[in-house]
């Protein structure tokens, strides 16, 4: 039975259904263009990369309000469908989800660019069914 669940990706699809039922929405994953290996000006901050926004959904903020601490930027937890992450890893030719998120510049949500602070995944039978991103608001919004 466990093999059947694993092989069909039922857990990931169930998580997708739950994310949609909880008001799943779409945010944008902002990816920088690949670096130019021979261009030293990029390493010196003279040339800057272009960015591409890729839809990421369904996603749900785990809490309705951010985690706020004195003198620190607000943090959010975002639950992301493993199905969409798997499709992005394949279509953008990244080797794994961790490489994809490490390469991402941030998550664009409500016209606000949030930095990805950490990424963890929930697994069942070795297959991820949801990713948990900890996002940090820009320092300019710190209160």
């Amino acid at each position, binding site marked *: 039975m466990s093999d059947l669940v694993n092989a069909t990706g039922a857990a990931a699809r169930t998580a997708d259904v739950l994310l949609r039922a909880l008001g799943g929405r779409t945010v944008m994953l902002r990816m*920088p263009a690949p670096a130019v*290996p021979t*261009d030293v*000006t990029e390493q010196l*901050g003279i*040339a800057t990369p272009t960015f591409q926004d890729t839809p990421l959904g369904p996603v749900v903020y785990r809490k309705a309000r951010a985690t706020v601490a004195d003198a620190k930027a607000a943090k959010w937890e975002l639950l992301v469908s493993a199905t969409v992450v798997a499709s992005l890893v394949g279509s953008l030719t990244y080797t794994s989800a961790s490489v994809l998120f490490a390469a991402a510049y941030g998550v664009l949500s409500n016209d606000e660019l949030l*930095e990805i602070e950490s990424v963890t995944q929930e697994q069942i039978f070795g297959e991820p069914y949801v990713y948990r991103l900890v996002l*940090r608001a820009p320092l300019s919004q710190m209160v």
Partner: protein
Amino acid sequence: MQNAKDTFYVTLQSRLAALNPARTIVVRGVVRPGTLVEENELPSAWVPVNAFRLQWTGLHVNSGGPLPMVSMECSIQYATDGTSGNGGMDRGRLLAAMDAELVSALSAEPHTVPKMNYSAAGDGVAPAAMGTNVFWADPVFGAATAAEDRLARTTTVQVYAYQEAGEL
């Protein structure tokens, strides 16, 4: 002073890459020598290990001479978690190897290089040589710090250059 910072970084990166070509990092999908300047990269919470991260932390200008003498402090941070296959038990040896590479790169003669202007450089366009040199003192190694399974050290080096007329 930006030209001096750029020149020092490119010099240090090329010396470290020559000493250990296997020390590399992946930045935006591209394999590069394992040295970077943090202020020139995209802001990120991710800290690369087994690589040298440069921060420009101090600045002092002496205007007494014909040309202003700029003294800048370069903070070089590096860390290692050891090799996972060895259970991280080799992290001390890996940090020592990075110490040795840094000593070799910064102690190698000459301690001075011509200052270059990279603002117009690019693919097929060489940087322009300027009229003065960039030079630096011996590095000062800070204490190694251990945080959970990570061993890290910060080394500082004073970098000097003359501020040429019209230079930013």
